[in-house]
């Protein structure tokens, strides 16, 4: 691999890695949101019926 090819591979590689890191961070956030949604659903179900109707 020539020196020019190494620099090109590095530049495009950095771009791909940053996009992948962004996806990984988003996946972590999605997992957290899923967990929190589940907790809130359980909390809503645990509320007494009258309280739910009142809002």
């Amino acid at each position, binding site marked *: 691999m*020539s020196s020019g090819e190494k620099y090109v591979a590095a*530049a495009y590689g950095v771009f791909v890695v940053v996009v992948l890191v962004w996806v990984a961070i988003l996946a972590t*956030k999605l997992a957290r*949101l899923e967990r929190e949604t589940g907790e809130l659903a359980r*909390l809503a179900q645990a509320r007494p019926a009258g309280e739910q109707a009142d809002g």
Partner: protein
Amino acid sequence: MSITKPSLTVLAWGAAALTTLAAVMIFAVAPEDADQGFSQKIFYVHVPIALTAYACFGLGAWKAYRLLATRGERYDLESYTGVHLGTIFGVLTLVTGAIWAKASWGVWWTWSSNQLVLFLVLFLFYCAYFMLRFSVEPGARRERISAVYALFGVALIPVSFFAIRLANDFIHPTVFTREGPQMTGEMFAAFCVSWASITLLAYVMYRVELAGKRIDANLRDLREALQP
């Protein structure tokens, strides 16, 4: 008349298809540069990323203006997301630029290029946006302060963009002049496809990030309403 936003799924697939096409055009269609050789291929990723960073900061500033003009709360998250993505693309601009500089000029960075220094100033200005935003309690005050700051930063975009043309900068190359793009038709086509793909990718990222931040905010409100 309302304009329906295209589906995120369609946009994501479009970005993937355009990125594939851009890779083919860059490495199979566009000829090798006679002066810089193979390392010139960095141009097709570095310049579109830099233009996308400007666009994201511009979008953040436009949404900030809308917030100040209409007091619409939703613009706060939109402005914040625009600045956030601008910062990500700003990091990419600086890193890919440094790699290209090393390949072309033999140095990772030079303080004598106005274009480089002004982009760094723009980037650092928007990095400080986050420090300011998270140092203020959430609420209307934070929204207004963040919006004013994001709006001020937009003044740096044309200064950074035109710096190379306003000053006698002999280091950083000027590819787009009044006579048109200084490259062959295939090179220009590859550049346009690459620019379109990165812009579309950034827009997809913007929509996904915004949806995530809105879900986060809604969940916070819901938790406050549900918890005794």
